[in-house]
């Protein structure tokens, strides 16, 4: 048996296993990357972000990142475009709000769990129903689900409040502590984002990633090779939707309201934009993209009216010029830099 040829730039920090070496993906120490991110965020952000409105933006960014990571699982990894992420956010938001309204604000965490569970189950059902549909029809089916949701939610006034507007949602509360300030909420939200990132890492370091990519890049051939295409796609769809549900619940408790006005189809497109802009090749792309999505309207306040035009233009530019998003640009820069450096050192020697 030949020894494995590893990619040269992966350092082996941990003890070398003498057993068969797993594929490179298992050795990339992605957890360290997440840890660095979490620590850096906790150290830097609370100092830099001080005003109330900025804090609110920062917390929105974490919530949107989670939804966008979910969308990455559904579309970036499993390859099925779904319009319904905003629907899942709505559903999660309503359910979490309902739990804290009926049982009391101290049950906030239970509300989150309920939101995640409900959206996961709902998505699994939709996934099962649409198991055999092709990509395009699946997208249309999720569009249908979203549209139906946007029409039906406002009618379920006991769950969703008058006209689909749930207001007066209690702030997050863990045990006895009520998280009222932006900074308090930040700790919780960054913790949740870190948790989701850990889940993302665990996914990448598992056969599920391989199966998802196989299903995405060539489903029919993957089927003949025994890859469980349908099961993989439903799993990732449910997981991604659950992330959407968590995100919606977070936003609900952050802003105090959930309404169908703020979670329309344009948000689904916005999440798509986050993924595309940041880079659809990894789970860091959505985090970066979400940051841009949240920050850009602030930068362009004078162009408030032109907001949608700018988004559309941005999407167009990104899709034409940056197929791998900003992270792809970063990677190209690094690769070019490395080549230039190598040439320079070779020339000088």
């Amino acid at each position, binding site marked *: 048996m030949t020894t494995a040829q590893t990619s040269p730039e992966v350092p082996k920090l941990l003890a070398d296993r003498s057993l068969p070496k797993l594929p490179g993906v298992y050795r990339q120490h992605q957890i360290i990357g997440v840890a660095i991110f979490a620590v850096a965020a906790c150290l830097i952000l609370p100092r830099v972000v001080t005003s109330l409105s900025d804090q609110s933006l920062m917390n929105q960014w974490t919530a949107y990142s989670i939804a966008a990571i979910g969308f990455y699982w559904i579309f970036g990894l499993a390859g099925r475009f779904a319009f319904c992420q905003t629907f899942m956010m709505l559903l999660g938001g309503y359910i979490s709000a309902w739990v804290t309204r009926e049982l009391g604000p101290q049950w906030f965490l239970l509300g989150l769990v309920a939101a995640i569970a409900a959206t996961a189950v709902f998505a699994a059902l939709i996934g099962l*129903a*649409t*198991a*055999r*549909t*092709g990509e*395009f*029809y699946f997208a*249309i*089916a999720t*569009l*249908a*689900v979203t*549209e*139906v949701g946007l*029409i*039906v939610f406002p*009618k379920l006034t006991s769950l969703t409040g008058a006209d689909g507007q749930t207001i007066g949602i209690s702030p997050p509360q863990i045990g006895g502590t009520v998280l009222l300030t932006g900074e308090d909420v930040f700790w919780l939200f960054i913790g949740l984002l870190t948790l989701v990132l850990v889940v993302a890492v665990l996914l990448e370091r598992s056969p599920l990633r391989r199966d998802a990519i196989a299903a995405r890049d060539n489903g029919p051939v993957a089927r003949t090779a025994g890859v469980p295409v349908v099961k993989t796609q439903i799993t990732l769809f449910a997981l991604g939707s659950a992330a959407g549900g968590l995100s919606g619940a977070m936003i609900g408790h952050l802003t105090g309201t959930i309404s169908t006005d703020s979670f329309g189809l*344009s948000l689904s*497109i916005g999440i*798509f934009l986050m993924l*595309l802009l940041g880079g659809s090749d990894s789970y860091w792309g959505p985090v970066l993209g979400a940051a841009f999505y949240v920050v850009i309207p602030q930068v362009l306040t004078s162009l408030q*009216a*032109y*907001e*949608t*035009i*700018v*988004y*559309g*233009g*941005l*999407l*167009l530019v990104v*899709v*034409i010029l940056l*197929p791998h998003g900003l992270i792809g640009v970063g990677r190209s820069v690094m690769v070019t830099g490395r080549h230039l450096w190598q040439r320079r050192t070779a020339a000088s020697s």
Partner: protein
Amino acid sequence: MSTLISLLASGISLGGVLALVSVGFLLLYKATGVLNFAHGDLVTLGAYVAIWVIAEWGLPSVAAYALALIALFLVGVIVERIAYAPLRKRPPLVAVIATLAAAIMIEGLIAVWQGANPKSLASPVQNVIFTIDGARIPAQEVLIVVAAVVVLAAVLFVFEKTSFGRQVRAMAADPEMAQLNGVAMRTLSMLAFGLSAALACLAGVLIAPLNEVTPTFGFTLMISGFAAAVLGGFGSIGGVILGSIVVGLVQNLLGGYVLQGYAEALPFILMFLVLVVRPEGLLVLKSSRL
């Protein structure tokens, strides 16, 4: 009885409009393989251009419609140049995303240009109302059906029987072969986008006088058009027309009689159920674009 008749009439006229919208969408897909998500916003744009022409130059409504048709034809060509031609070599998903981007931009442009407040479009028959058996049927609805029938028949004729239609079908079936056989791909695809946009415009100016005009009404119509296309079978023009009528009737009849308030959701629920039962859609999408 009079309710039934007026619901039937509005259902069929809605079906006519949806048929125009979805046939325009389908034709473009057949000719170029592109799913043009900006199609709905072209419907909206058509109505708004007509409104603007009437407001700015005081022209009669029919003249405004004609100008709008020409304008939208040009817009279609522009969309082809920006969002399709540069992306021909890339995977088809990229072109679809580009049309989505174009859709967002067009919708934004309309909102900036005309504001988000609802407007109304004048029509040559706007004050004419027929009365059948006690039911009041706006002449506009009749106009829609007549126009739809005429235009769709013309489209079918062109597509099946003329050399232009033949070339489009050749391009759809095998783009490389068509190119080798001298089919002028660039001109054809610009024409296809332009004509598709003109059809969208026609749908817009036909239905706009019946309701208020907002920057999103065309998008909503397009989505209902998707439902129609799925129900009737995305492969054939005839199927799409049939599906449109079904959607229009379901929305108005069921919505009117039974589940009031849920009317708009019904086509989607129906479409979802169809997709569950027949996952390939009612006709296979990929086996041939025809």
